[in-house]
């Protein structure tokens, strides 16, 4: 059996919704043992978000929770209760990594901030993923996923639209930004783990969602200090590519290189307007963008996504059909790469979901366990790992500790 890249790594997750859980899912998928802590009774916030089978909400049937929590073990623990926090500290002493997402004022209040935790376990890496990070005047502000996306300047650039900026800025669809923060947190956590394996020391990994998302538009944002330009949603693209409506959907066309533009002209059947000498110059195409765009748009409307896509790629220029979930799940490319995987879940039955965004040849991704039901691994962790008796477990349940 192939080895897992993080086979010996122990992670405790005290986080919910998307960012923190996605961060630790990325580690769990590489073979780390992740113990996820959920609030007794209600559990992770993502359990109350869809998709649910037939759209009927049920805390054990959330597709979102499933996707974000595969390969983890789940326990319930009341962190509002001092006895709960005592157990938490025991778990921490065994761990390499804690992933948490609480407001700094909350971890401080509970004595579970980095300074306290590192005293309990000097090897511990504490990855905190919060809207504004652990320091600074905004650190305890409240922000949901909509707010974090807009806090970073990414919203102000979205959508890219030609008519201008009369309408409101948007966040990307789904929970894209929150996932991104989890991914960025996971990179830093793996880096910190590398240092820990060499020097034996843990450290704090402070992830501000604002900063993580701002890094995704840093090139655009730094134009302000360097050029005095505030980029906005107005989209001036033209000479190098654009998005067009075609017969049966939308096409993104990019002709960044001259030979790509020439290939495009060839694909369009060398129409008269396009073989005009002047159109060979990108500067001219930029200047006469409106006319160019009308001509291209006219041609696009006569063809289907698939015709344009495959023919263009054969000629060597970058065309992509705008694909939705159905297109992607059913595409030959996804199938050949086995990008979607299937697994059974105790309450939902068979689920088909994206596997991993990488193919590692020696330590491949594998689905080892389905997402945990609420408190599914209480007995395993509390009794077998921490040495509580079944009776004590019952007492903790009735005392509201778990």
């Amino acid at each position, binding site marked *: 059996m192939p080895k897992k*890249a993080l086979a010996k790594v122990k992670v405790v997750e005290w986080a919910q919704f998307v960012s923190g859980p996605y961060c630790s899912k990325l580690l769990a998928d590489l073979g780390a043992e992740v113990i996820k802590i959920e609030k007794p009774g209600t559990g992770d916030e993502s359990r109350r*978000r869809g998709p649910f089978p037939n759209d009927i909400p049920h805390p054990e049937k959330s*597709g979102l929770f499933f996707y974000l929590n595969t390969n983890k073990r789940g326990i319930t623990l009341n962190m509002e209760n001092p006895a709960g926090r005592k157990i938490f500290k025991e778990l921490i002493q065994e761990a390499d990594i804690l992933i948490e997402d609480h407001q700094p004022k909350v971890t401080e209040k509970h004595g579970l901030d980095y300074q306290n935790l590192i005293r309990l376990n000097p090897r511990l890496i504490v990855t905190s993923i919060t809207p504004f990070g652990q320091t*600074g*005047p905004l650190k305890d*502000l409240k*922000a*949901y996923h*909509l*707010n974090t996306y807009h*806090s970073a*300047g990414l919203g*102000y*650039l*979205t*959508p*890219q639209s030609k008519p201008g900026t009369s309408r409101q800025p*948007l*966040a990307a*669809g*789904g*929970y894209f930004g929150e996932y991104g923060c989890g*991914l960025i947190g*996971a990179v830093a956590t793996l*880096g*910190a*783990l590398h*240092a820990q394996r060499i020097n034996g020391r843990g450290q*704090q990994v*402070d*992830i501000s969602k*604002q900063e993580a998302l701002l*890094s*995704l538009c840093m*090139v*655009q944002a*730094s*134009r*302000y200090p360097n050029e005095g330009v505030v980029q906005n949603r107005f*989209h*001036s*693209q033209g000479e190098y590519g*654009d998005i067009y409506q075609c017969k049966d959907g*939308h096409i993104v066309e990019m002709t960044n290189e001259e030979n790509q533009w020439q290939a495009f002209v060839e694909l369009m059947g060398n129409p008269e307007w396009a073989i005009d000498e002047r159109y060979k110059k990108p500067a001219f195409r930029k200047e006469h963008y409106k006319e160019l765009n009308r001509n291209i748009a006219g041609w696009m409307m006569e063809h289907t996504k698939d015709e344009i896509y495959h023919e263009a*790629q054969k000629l060597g220029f970058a065309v992509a*059909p705008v694909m*939705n*979930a159905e*297109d*992607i799940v059913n595409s030959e*490319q996804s199938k050949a790469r086995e990008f979607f995987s299937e697994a059974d879940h105790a309450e939902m039955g068979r*689920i*088909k979901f*994206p596997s991993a*965004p*990488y*193919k*590692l*040849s*020696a330590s491949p991704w594998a689905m080892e366990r389905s997402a945990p039901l609420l408190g599914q691994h209480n007995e395993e962790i509390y009794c077998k790992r921490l040495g509580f008796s079944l009776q004590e477990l019952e007492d903790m349940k009735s005392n509201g500790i778990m």
Partner: protein
Amino acid sequence: MDNGALSGIRIADFSWAWAGSYATELLGFMGAEVIKIESMQRPDHTRLRAFTTGQVFESLDQSYVFNHINLNKLSIRLNLSKDKGIELAKRLVSISDVTAQNMRPGVMDRLGLGYEALKQVKEDIIYLSSSARGSIGPEKGYIGYAPNFGAFGGISSITGYTDGPPNYMRGEMDLISAITGTFAVIAAIHHRMDTGEGQHIDLSSSESISALMGEVFIDYTMNEKIQVRKGNKDEVMAPHNCYRCKGNDKWISIAISTEEEWNSFCKTIGSPAWTHDKKFSTGKDRLQNQEELDGLVEEWTINYSPREVMEILQKAGVAAIPSFDSEELYKSSHLNERQCWEEIEHPVTGKHTVYAPPWKLSDTPAKITRSAPLFGEHTHQIYQELLGLSEEEIERLEEEKVIY
């Protein structure tokens, strides 16, 4: 003393453009030594032009794009279209831990620099291949740039106004692909620490985007539902949008989740009559009538600046954050206290501001240690010090356009 989290790791970096270069820049922020292999025969296009704005740069050293996504790196000139160039590339790989490349799948193999070939040179090499559609499958040779990745990955189709076209995604697509690559490389470094084995990483930029939309795909496979564009709308929260404020193109994002937040919001804005309207009494009602609700909320926000709305509502426990523009982000006291912007000196362009590494590591801080390299800046240094070439040999190779 260098104490980066990845100190001691060396990268032979054949990558270019945004999606390749940023992956190795992140490794460099953590202390890895990144040697970027460049050539006049095929310069990194970000040294020449900025596709996002159409700007063309006067020399290879003046691009603000290149100079932002290649910090901390060393640059050597090496022409991969010459046999001797391939030999030198292999020698460089033989003393490296990681190789990264994002050429069209098949190109590195044809050059004799594919994973199997480089494994012969360095058995435990970690080899990142990143491409638009991945290095296997019927579309493996297809190419793409950031907006294509957004289209392939699915995010374009769900980003935009309800009545608008799919969104033309930008550089953030490249950077997500790059960050995913960085993640996989460090994972492979951990695997090598345990087993001594290297490996090949096949990264599809399209999949790196799709992975961040898991629930969107499950909605389809579970319910045959194809999610569409819905502006800023949320599945359960309302109000949940950006509202116009005082000023030109100024906006506040407000998201209300609980009854407590809703009641506090109503009280804070002075409980106007509409807040008692039955249409808005439960969360479900507010979700159902949110367009009307949005208009009413905006009648209030329009009287204030985004900053004022944030302060008023945050005090009341309501999540309100401005949709910041780059000027506000650059001047932000919060980001400045956290040292998120750095001014650095570049030998050609002079002082310029860059964005600091996106994570704060307390014990092994991620750092900007040098400005982006001039084209081929470290050619002589690296051939002499790392590969032991003499000055005469280097000159001869330059004449032969191997070092070019």
